């Protein structure tokens, strides 16, 4: 009897959070998804049909996908390199990497985007330097295009990838590496047989987290893309606020959400919820 009372108490104490989530999150979310099926002009799949067939929408989705995949792969590769040094480097190296990873966290994405613009534009730092050293004659088009957007996004996302990878490297027993060395394995053999398999869950978590994050990028493409690199988040904003075309905006949001949820489920399935929580903490 006593245990039943306790569990009932626990249940009721936990109740406010789910209630809040249902009222403040799930219900409005259902409302937004309902728009995608109902506006404009009656119930139907018109908005989804438009997403599948309208060349502009398709090209924006493909561009978003292309940029996000590229940025994710580059970010995770850089992050692995940094995390490796954060785990195995000298104390001095660790400090440099940690500061380099953490400082960008405290800067707003808007400031970072404009800082990159100052560096990458035609008369910016990078081009001025390259020209003064005679390496290039004409300034390179580094910003106000997809390349600029990818540089800005990668810089933003690398720290988010470093932490899960670092965490998985941290869990690797040093003795395994020492054992492999004593058995004559070089760096690559050790990497292939010990580091890579044991850090794979961290890499996968980092990949999915960064990819999900990158899908919603808004400010960086707007600033570094020169108004030309329209990605899906910006297009949703345009439909919602400029055109008050809520149906299409809601349908695109819905699709993004399904993609994100599917990726999260895949992540949990592959890595396992317990290991994911371990990695995250």
């Amino acid at each position, binding site marked *: 009897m006593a245990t039943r009372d306790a569990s009932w108490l626990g249940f009721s104490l936990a109740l406010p959070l789910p209630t809040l989530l249902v009222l403040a999150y799930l219900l409005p979310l259902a409302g937004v998804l309902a728009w995608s099926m109902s506006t404009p002009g009656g119930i139907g799949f018109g908005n989804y049909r438009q997403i599948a067939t*309208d*060349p*502009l929408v398709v*090209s*924006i989705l493909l*561009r978003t996908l292309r940029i996000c995949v590229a940025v994710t792969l580059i970010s995770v590769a850089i992050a692995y390199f940094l995390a490796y040094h954060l785990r195995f480097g000298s104390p001095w190296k660790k400090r440099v990497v940690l500061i380099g990873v953490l400082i960008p966290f405290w800067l707003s994405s*808007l400031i970072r985007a404009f800082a990159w613009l100052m560096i990458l*534009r*035609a*008369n910016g730092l990078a081009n001025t330097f390259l020209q003064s050293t005679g390496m290039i004659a004409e300034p390179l088009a580094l910003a*106000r295009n997809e390349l600029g957007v990818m540089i800005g996004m990668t810089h933003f996302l690398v720290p988010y990838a470093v932490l899960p990878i670092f965490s998985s490297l941290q869990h690797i027993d040093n003795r395994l590496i020492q054992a492999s060395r004593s058995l004559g394995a070089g760096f690559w053999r050790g990497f292939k047989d010990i580091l890579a398999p044991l850090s794979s869950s961290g890499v996968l978590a980092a990949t999915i987290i960064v990819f999900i994050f990158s899908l919603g990028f*808004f*400010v960086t493409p*707007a600033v570094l893309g*020169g*108004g*030309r*690199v*329209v990605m899906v988040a*910006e*297009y949703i*904003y*345009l439909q*919602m*606020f*400029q*055109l*008050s*075309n*809520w149906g299409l905006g809601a349908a695109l949001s819905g699709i993004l959400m399904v993609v994100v949820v599917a990726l999260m489920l895949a992540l949990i399935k592959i890595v396992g919820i317990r290991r994911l929580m371990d990695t995250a903490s």
Partner: protein
Amino acid sequence: MTERTSHFTLPNMTRRQFGISAMAAAAAGAILPRSAFGADQLVVANWGGNSVTAFEQAFAEPWSKLNAGKLVVDGGGPSEGAVKTQVESGAVRWDVCDGEMYSSYRLGKDNLVEKLDYNIIDKTLVGFGDVHDYGVANYVYSYVIAFDASKFGGDPPKSWADFWDVKKYPGKRSLYKWMSANLEIALLADGVKPTELYPLNLDRALAKIAELKPHILTHWETGVESQLLLRDGEITMGQVWNTGAELVKKQTSGQVDYTFDQAVVSPSVWFVPKNNPAGRDAAMRFIRMAQDPAVQAKLMEVNGMGPVNPAANALLSPELQKISPSAPDNFNRSVLMDNKWYAENYGQALDKYTALISG
């Protein structure tokens, strides 16, 4: 008659700061219910930045004399989506909105804004811009040609045809990110007579913009951005707001200059969201007050927003008349934008335009 003298500073009018602060503000605006504020006040919404202080300076005093109520200026950005959100959720926070003219037509059609009461508002005071059931012009601004005078000072550009002429005037260009005025200037550059612009030939305009595309460095979004591009010499010519052009001209001591030749005059608009909290009558009286020549002149003085009441231009100092987009000398060289065309064609045209610039 008191003459207005200029302390014309920092008119970084920013309309539709795409996504950067406007989105956050719009989202917040949609959530906060109006009841958080007192009842005895009137909330006027505009696009933020310096225009918030400008509205306070121009409107607060005459409004308090009229009504004794408080005037609150909210820079949340009255986009169509934001207004629709407020009206449909029943949490209307704005009494009067300084919006886009084409929005007023579209919102009127969707029954999201109040019908204006022309027994209170005086139609005859509006010399430039639209007067219709759901919106009335409140001030004007112009899209002008700004250029690097150190390069082109000897033979400055005088038309959009010159703007398109990258042989005679080499260097990069920048256009406003949104379609407004871009279609007009493209057609003017293509030789369409100002009187024959409307209805706009969309395909012809887009083809002309495509021609300039390799020379367009960027599509600017905020007034500040357009000013930086000119000041830092990243572009040699830009299509910018007259307020921004004037500011850069001052900052660079004339190294960047601009012309009102073929300027595209765009009227801004007052509209009133359906069931506005202070009541329809108070909103109408505010709009009427803002038509007063002295109030209009003050708005020009503090933020470079050109009067729509022609009588106001006479109150300006000669210095301000020179930079007012609606002063006769400037207005006669300009083209007035017809927002009815945009109201009917905006969505479809914007899709084609977005496809062109992002393609």
